[in-house]
Structures are given as C-alpha cells and as structure tokens.
C-alpha cells in the first residue's frame, strides 16, 4: 500500500478523560507527540495498530500520517494538528504537550 511511504503514529481518545493520546513504543499511551511511536513502514504500522487495540484504555485508535521534519512528529492533516494543539479560539484552552 502507498501508506508505507508515509510515516504514521497511532492516536486515540483516552477512555476516562476523552482527551487525545498517542501510542508509545512500549504499548502505553502518552499525551506527548514526542513520545509517540512512529511507524516507518507498513508492517510496523500494522503492529502498532494491533498493539493499540486496548478497549479498556482508549476509544477509537487509528493511524495518523505524520511528517518527521522537526523535533517531534508533525501531524499532516489539519484536523490532526488541531487535535494535537487543542481548541484554537482561546489561548488558555490550548493543550500543553508535556
């Protein structure tokens, strides 16, 4: 699939809080894009997706395309970028990535 050309990460919403989380390399969940596990090929993406199937922890995990042109993975789609940064209409509601 063409997908293997685009690095991706797994994102979901936390079951209890509902906020945006990312799968890390150990199969846990992080709120920091910097700690998100990045799949560089289709097999890894498939493996991460399988690892993310944790209905007791999160809701709706899915693969999101990222660019690796900076210190942290950068979501490619603007929807994903807004999920990462939080609501844009009030500075105090912005998400602070740890």
């Amino acid at each position, binding site marked *: 699939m063409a997908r293997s050309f685009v690095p991706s990460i797994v994102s979901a*919403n936390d079951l209890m809080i*509902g906020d945006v989380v990312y799968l890390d390399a150990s199969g846990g969940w992080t709120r920091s894009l910097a700690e998100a596990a990045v799949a560089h090929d289709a097999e890894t993406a498939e493996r991460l997706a399988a690892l993310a199937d944790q*209905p007791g922890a999160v809701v709706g995990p899915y693969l999101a395309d990222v660019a690796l042109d900076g210190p942290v993975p950068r979501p490619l*789609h603007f929807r994903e970028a807004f999920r990462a940064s939080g*609501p844009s209409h009030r500075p105090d509601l912005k998400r602070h990535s740890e």
Partner: protein
Amino acid sequence: MYRYDEFDAAYVRERVAQFRDQTQRRIDGRLTEDEYKPLRLQNGLYLQLHAYMLRVAIPYGTLSSRQMRALAEIAERWDRGYGHFTTRQNIQFNWTRLSDVGDILDHLAAVEMHAIQTSGNCIRNVTADHFAGAAADEIEDPRPTAELIRQWSTAHPEFAFLPRKFKVAVTGSPNDRAVTRSHDIGLRMLRDANGAPGYEVIVGGGMGRTPMVGKVMRGFLPRAELLPYLEAILRVYNLHGRRDNKYKARIKILVHETGEAEIREQVEAEFRSILANGGAAHLPGEAELARIAAYFAPPALPERSAVSDREEDARTFDPVFAAWAEVNTTPHGVAGYAIATVSLKAIGASPGDATASQMRALADMADRYSQGELRISHEQNVILPHVARDDLPALHAALLREELAEANSGLISDIIACPGLDYCALATARSIPIAQDISRRFSDGPRARAIGEFRIKISGCINACGHHHMGHVGILGLEKAGVESYQITLGGDHTENAAIGERVGPGLGAEEVGPAIERLVDAYLDLRASPEERFVDVCRRLGLAPFKAAIYREDKRDAA
C-alpha cells in the same frame, strides 16, 4: 415554569441510575465501546475531538434561575468553568470526564433537567420562540404546546428508532423567531375565523446537506387534534423514511421525493385511521391542557406606567445604555416592561459561551429583575423576559460588570457559530475563529448599528448546526485540498419569510473570509436605498451579482 410530577422525577432518577451502571460496566470492561456508544448517546454524551461532551436539554429554551445556577455549578465543578449554548437552545459541556457523568446527571435531575433525547434518531428537544410568554406580538404562549409535545415524545416507544433525528419547533407569534420552516415539523399557533385556537403545521423543513423550506401540511389544525396529527406524520415517516442512506433519511427528503400532495394524503389517511381506531384516547382533554398551561401562567407583574422616566433619563444621559437599550430590548406584552437580550457575543468572544460566574450572575439578575426566569435563544444569547423598564439601567450596569452588555443583538457581530473543528468530531473546518475575526472587524458600535440588522451564521460542516443556509450571510467551513475552505451563501432568511441562501462561488481561505465580508458590507452600504433597507432586502431587490463582485474582487487594503 413546568414542574416535574412524581412520574417525571422518578423516570429521570431511574435513567441516571441506569446510565451510571452502564458507564461503570464500560469502565470495568463488561460493555464494549460498540455496546456502550448507543447508550451514552441516548444520554447526550458524545466523544468529541478533545473530550467527552455532554449535551443537556433546555426544554423550549426556558430556564429558572435555580437551573441556571445548577448549570454554573456543573461548569465549575466538573468542566472548565464554562458552557456552550447551542442553536437548539441546549447547553453543551465540552470537558466532561466519564467518571463524573453520573454525578452531573444527578445534579441536573435535582433541578428537573436531563440529557435524554439530545442525540440519536428520536424526537429531540422541542424548541420554541425565545420570547415566548413575553412578546408583545404573541398570539399565545407556545410553551404549553411544546411541553405537551415533550411529554408525548419523551421515551415514546414507537418513535425511539426513527430513520433519523426529528426536530420540532413551535412559535406563538406571527413573527417567527423559532425558525419553524427549517424543522422536521414546525408549528405556528393561529386562530381560525371563529377565534378557536389551532396550528399551521409545517413539515419537511431542514438544513444540512439538502436544505429545504418546510411545506404547509395543514393550514389549520384544531388544537385538540395536535397529538394524533403529529402521530400520523411520525408514522408515515417511520414507515417510509429511508433507512438505507443516512443522507436521505430525514423527513424533508421523504416529502421531497414522494411529493407534498401524496404525503399529505398519507398523513391525513393515517390521522383518520388513528381517530377511527380509538385515537380519541390520544386527545389530551381540556383539563390536561389547562393543567399544563397553568405552569406557564404569565407572572403577576406589578402595574407600571408605559413610559419609564428612569429609562428615558438614562437614554438621554448615558449613550452606552442608550445604544444597548435601543438594540437589545424588545417590546413586552405588558406596558412598562421590556424583554432584554443578553448578548453572548462580546467582541472577539466565542459565540454562545458563558462562564460559570456569568451564568451565576445572570441567575441573580433573573431573580432581581426578571421574575427568576431566563430563556436561551437559538441565536445563542440569553433572554431576560420580564424586565421593568425602570430597572433597565440597573440591569445594564450589572451586565457591564459581567462583560455581558454588548449592544449587538441582531447586528453583524451577533454571529451564530457552531463549535466547528475546535471541538466537534464531525467538523471539516473551524467556525469560532471565523466568527471572532468578523466580530473584531465590526467592533465599532456606531458603525455596526449603522449597518443594521445583519445575520451571519457559520457552520463547521455540512450538517449546518450553525444554520448557515438561513443566514443573510452564511459561511460553511469545508476541507479543500487539505486546508480549511469557506463557502459563502447570501440571501438566506430564518424568519416567516424563510429562504435558503445561494452559494456565490468558490470557497475562500480562512484568512480571506473577514476581508471579503468587509467588502460585502461596503458594497451593501453603497447600494442600499435607505438605512432601513437591510442587507437581505437589497439582495432581494438587486440579486447577488454586486455582492459576488465585492466578495471576489482583489482587495488592495488586504493585499498590501
């Protein structure tokens, strides 16, 4: 105000207990997400982009001060200190935690509120004119009808799984402030030639992907026959509405595809059959109607002179008050009183948002100046329905302290905007920042007042929660080639002269919208025949061509 009877109270408490248990079972793994999702949606709990959102019904937009205080407390204790009032007269809490939902619902139940039927393919919260029971132009208070429909439609077993969601709006005034022509069913209260009360029944209006203006199904329906007639409409829809394609599942599509005359015939046949088969049992008797109506009896307002010296003095000596009173008050049915619209559209603010302290202050103001009553408008503002004209200056001073005194009701900065991509999981683009940008461009009060009535409505996707089709200017946020793109429609109208706006051309980038609206307004000011001719009137008189030209012309100021 309607008060729960024992049955209502027990039912709501039971639902909270059930949902607590369902949520606990989701948390401990006994329910899967697929099993839990329909249950949480039936209780108004959505999972949005950044958190769970709880949508709480405000029946026909009426709130007591006690209920408003409870909403403030929920915002403060379990959310991030604010709530969002919606175009369906509901309130949404954007940051709900799963483990808190049971407590929040208990808190709501204590003030006779809930989140049932604020989602799903059922009959949703019934909306009504936000000036109900107060407006000078009202034939009759629409809320007893709305309450009757609420009771009939709540947990109605036959209509729990309709092809799609179903929305009903009621107005008791010829000046339609409830957008009845864009609802699945719209009811306009009328009197027949003998003065008997009844309804004009409008069916098949709607916004969304395929906007339609509703069709008059019955020119006059006697009041007592309302429920069997609604039942007939719902039955025809339930039977023939499309379930194969959710984009074609609303009743507007059924009416459109089947034809108005044919649907009318089917509805009338079903109606006759209901009445012939014991349906008279469905007819609420006069006593029951009177029982419900008694809850909405007009407050005993002390007699006052029609003209208030205190108000007149303040209008003369305080220009800030004068502007607010001019724009944000509406004639009341009782001499010496006014309806005050409290704008939740301060310049640069997020439309419809109120902080917990503002909600609490509004509750106090309602107790002090408005018989303890508030209303939420579909325009995302708060209404104090019964304010003595003598009290308007003091009310205005209190509003100023809470940053709630923007004098812009119905003006260009009184923008409807849905949550859009800042919150909503279905959104294709943001709405709120577009509203903020336009609002800041028209922050000059005298200029905004000179422009006059100007309704901008913004939706963050084709679902049209921001009513963009019926804005004088509608703005629809979409995704185009990986960026936000905004389609402009012009000439829409949400009133009794309902009209769907016409799309003017290709989408604009987010930063192009504000400048385009400024050019549009400049063109309007050049073209209007008099200050009384509103933008939408000029659209009707001249067509959209001059405004299209203004929107798409290269603007030198902004290109610089």
